[in-house]
């Protein structure tokens, strides 16, 4: 390789890094998991969403700037076709009218233990409520990364399980949600 080629390559690299706006991370559907577990008489019933997507943007300093999660509610699988059918009803997710849940955060803080928190809103079943998602971030080889976290969401905030279920006596009010999402990066150029 001639000195000229090396110089030009170096110059391009320099220019390129200089103009990178940040990084756009998109979830890889095959490696990512989003779980949820309501409780029955204090015992968890595990389920997961088969279809969801997560996008995450970080700036030049690798600081988070935006997190967006979209979940197809009809893809909820609780390991029982009767339950999967029952939760479509108006009392539960009312899937016919509200097929999608969306979480958006553009505010990120670090708590006293050094944990990153995404402060945002969850739009679900026609309600928009503030929700904070704790995030752990881990770089993987090959330009990938993994995001994990766990939180509790109050189902009454979204009227999930209304009417005779609303008391939380049998089906608990707190629903555990946890995830491990694998991301593939692409640079955001100016």
């Amino acid at each position, binding site marked *: 390789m001639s000195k000229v080629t090396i110089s030009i390559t170096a110059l391009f690299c320099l220019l390129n890094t200089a103009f990178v706006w940040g990084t756009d991370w998109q979830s890889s559907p095959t490696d990512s998991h989003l779980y949820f577990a309501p409780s029955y008489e204090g*015992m*968890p*019933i595990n389920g997961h969403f088969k279809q969801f997507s997560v996008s995450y943007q970080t700036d030049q300093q690798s600081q988070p700037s935006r997190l967006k999660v979209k979940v197809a509610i009809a893809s909820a699988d609780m390991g*029982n*076709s009767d*339950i999967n059918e*029952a939760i479509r009803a108006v009392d539960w997710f009312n899937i016919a009218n509200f097929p999608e849940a969306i979480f958006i955060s553009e505010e990120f803080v670090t708590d006293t233990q050094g944990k990153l928190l995404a402060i945002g809103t969850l739009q679900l079943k026609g309600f928009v409520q503030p929700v904070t998602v704790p995030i752990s971030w881990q770089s993987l080889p090959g330009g990938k990364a993994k995001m994990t976290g766990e939180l509790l969401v109050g189902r009454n905030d979204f009227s999930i399980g209304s009417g005779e279920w609303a008391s939380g006596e*049998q089906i608990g009010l707190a629903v555990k949600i946890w995830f491990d999402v694998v991301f593939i990066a692409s640079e955001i150029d100016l």
Partner: protein
Amino acid sequence: MPLENTAQHWGWLSKTLHWLTALLIFVQIPLGFYAESLKLSPLKMDVFVWHKSLGMLVFMLLILRLLWRIKGTIPEALESKRVQAGLARAAHGLLYGLMVLLPISGWITSSAANIPVKLFWLIPLPALVGPDDALKSLAAEVHEISVFVLLLILILHIGAALRHHLMLRDNVLRRMWF
């Protein structure tokens, strides 16, 4: 009344276990059909907790009965006709078999349906299998067929006891009473 069975008499433990099981089964069968008929609701879930709790209780009483039977003796048959004695033995064998098959198939149905269970709202019942829709349907089918067979055998069992008591006027039913 002696605790243990003899060649002529039932001891009080065997009698108590027999009638307690009988009582539980007579509650259990309508409870199961009732639970099944309800639409998904907190009531349905509570009725099922009762059904599962009583079912496991019958199962535990059965294990106790079998151990007691193996350990001790049972009274000789009062029926002298060979065909009737054979039928009675077969019916008793079937009753024991169904009292194993019903709780186990119910337990598998509940586990495969991914429903956690706390017996009497107190004792967590471990899952026998993981979530599995096909297995759930199969086990539920076995459970349902078993209960109809049980009803049939119970009619024979009760009918035979009454026939001995009312028509043959022997001690078959009386010696099972206290």
